């Protein structure tokens, strides 16, 4: 079982990187929300893995549950905001969503 940290830790890092790259590169608000979800997946795996590494699986699990709840709510709010943005700006393109600057 010693290979678990290798693979899982690597997954966490790569998935995190993918999520951040998306946040930097995408111009679509929905994609941004998807990227946030991907980031959270990485965080969740990392937390459960951490619990597993030091033998406290239960703590890791209960933490991950809270994370799921919290980030689902954030995702839902983000989506609701995106819907409103579409309604009032007519687009979800981030490049058009920059009235506030300077």
């Amino acid at each position, binding site marked *: 079982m*010693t*290979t678990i*940290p290798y693979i*899982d830790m690597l997954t966490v890092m790569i998935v995190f990187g993918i999520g951040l790259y998306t946040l930097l590169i995408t111009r679509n608000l929905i994609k941004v929300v*998807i990227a946030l979800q991907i980031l959270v997946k990485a965080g969740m795996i990392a937390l459960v893995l951490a619990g597993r590494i030091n033998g406290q699986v239960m703590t890791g699990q209960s933490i991950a549950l809270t994370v799921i709840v919290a980030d689902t709510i954030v995702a839902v709010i983000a989506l609701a905001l995106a819907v409103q943005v579409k309604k009032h700006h007519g687009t979800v393109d981030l490049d058009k969503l920059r009235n506030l600057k300077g």
Partner: protein
Amino acid sequence: MLNALIAAGIILCAIQAIRVKKLIAAALWLAGCSALTALMLYLLGAPEIAVIELSVGAGLVTVLFVFAINIIGDEAPVRMPAIPPLVAWLLVILSFGTLAYLNLPLLEIEVPTLVTIPMAASSIWEDRALDVILQIVLIFAGVLGIINLISDNSSRESKA
């Protein structure tokens, strides 16, 4: 071996979720990513959380995404990314290169084999009861906000 496969699957799904042009497809790839994550969590010895992730992450969230995308509609994909991809690559590689490098020692830790899988419920309710209470608060706050965000604006004008 199974671990490696699942890991590859998660990464593939994540890449696909950001690469595909159609938003609906992206949401579905995200669901796939979520499902595989659930599987990985199961293998890590967290079956309850895997089930919840499957139902919430792969199920509920995907449904919401589909809903939202339906309302918003697919926009024509824009070719020009907002900031130069080279800069983006550089930033990501630099940040996570250093992070991964710093965390190399983590890989040498021996992970104990799981003998029995204890029931999560006791731990969740007894040890971290405060977190659970706060989940309710979070849900309440979220619901309030969403009601406010999606409720129709027209009533305001009539009142004013």
